[in-house]
């Protein structure tokens, strides 16, 4: 079943962002599919990170921060008064570029979000932890293994743990911000396998500077430059036959030649 047959759950319409009178995003339209990976690529300063922050309401507020447009999660305005912030963050998960474990065991880490919500039912909680760890490939029947301190893990495993931490809350959409940036190639491959596994059941929006990775993993891709969507579409199409010269220049590494 192609993901095009399911309605996208996170929709961005005509999103514009100005910070201190400088445009950061201009009229961005995109849709994170219900299943599968949407990669967002673009040079530094293209607004990718700001976009991400707007999607889980972590962009810092301020008098100089002006926003226009709509972000809809399952049809609801993400920024409406009725939305509870905690719920938004649970439904729109976010994984940071550098893996930072919480103090405590592996199980403690994955359970953190659940403990906040006071999921009282022990079995419920354990079930969610098990599911999350299975998806990322860190699950083991051995209880003692799960009770190991989280900082014992290798860097790659730590990043998998961070993803599991977010998955435990059963998010609708997962925002991955350069998650393999600090990992060696082997760990990167493991995380990429995990991303494909995650994308089987939910939408993933992935920021990456690694174009080969974007080509490997994503089903659709959005190319941002200077806050505008230059081109978007099926990955295979955009990478092999980009419609615009700008896109082709970026993919070929020609963007940014000469002094900025």
């Amino acid at each position, binding site marked *: 079943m192609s993901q095009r047959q399911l309605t996208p759950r996170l929709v961005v319409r005509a999103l514009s962002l100005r910070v201190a009178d400088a445009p950061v995003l201009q009229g961005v339209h995109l849709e994170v599919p219900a299943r599968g990976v949407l990669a967002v690529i673009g040079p530094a300063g293209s607004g990718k990170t700001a976009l991400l922050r707007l999607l889980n309401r972590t962009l810092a507020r301020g008098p100089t921060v002006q926003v226009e447009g709509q972000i809809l999660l399952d049809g609801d305005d993400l920024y409406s008064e009725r939305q509870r912030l905690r719920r938004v963050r649970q439904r729109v998960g976010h994984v940071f570029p550098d893996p*930072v474990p*919480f103090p405590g065991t592996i199980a403690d880490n994955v359970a953190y979000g659940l403990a906040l919500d006071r999921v009282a039912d022990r079995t419920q909680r354990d079930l969610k932890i098990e599911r999350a760890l299975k998806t990322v490939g860190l699950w083991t029947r051995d209880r003692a293994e799960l009770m190991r301190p989280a900082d014992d893990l290798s860097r790659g495993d730590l990043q998998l743990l961070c993803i599991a931490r977010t998955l435990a809350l059963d998010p609708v959409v997962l925002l991955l911000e350069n998650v393999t940036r600090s990992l060696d190639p082997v760990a990167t491959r493991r995380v990429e396998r995990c991303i494909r596994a995650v994308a089987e059941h939910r939408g993933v929006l992935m920021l990456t500077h690694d174009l080969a990775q974007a080509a490997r993993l994503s089903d659709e891709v959005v190319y941002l430059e200077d806050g505008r969507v230059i081109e978007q579409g099926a990955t295979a199409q955009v990478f092999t036959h980009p419609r615009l010269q700008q896109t082709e220049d970026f993919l070929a590494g020609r963007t940014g030649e000469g002094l900025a």
Partner: protein
Amino acid sequence: MIEVLLLLLSVPIGLGAGLYFAALVPEDGLRHQAGVVVAGLSEASPALAGLAVLGVGLQGSQVGALACGWALLLVPRLVRSVERALAEVDPGLQARAEALGATPWEALRTLVLPAAAPRLTGLAVRDVARTLGELAPLLVISAAGLALLQTHAWVAGAAVAWVVAANVLATLLEAPR
């Protein structure tokens, strides 16, 4: 009565103020500056506290002078210790906890403070011991009685013992698990 309150409440007030200034206030702004001023007084001389207590008019009551001096010396030290303990915690913890739905205070309470606890306890124990030891000169100056110290010279020895014990305790508390 007030003296007892001062003696007891100085610790929670100092810790609470430290937490406020270090974690709940934007980095630029009047409140942050106020925190810098309070923390800066952590190395103030007990002689200063003693003279101030005198000026405020407490020389009659020795207990009053002690309690006031204790508060004046201890609160800034605890404020600075909270700042130092929190600074050693990975700043990424707060952001990641909030990304999972925690409010800023929840993130502090459930993650950042427990991580900072060993270091904070170590620092706070030393602050208390040091302030205890300094009450003697403070009393001498504020309540005007050198004879006090000369007859009770053992106070000096006790002060040193406090400090050494506190430092040993602090080192043990701060040692990694």
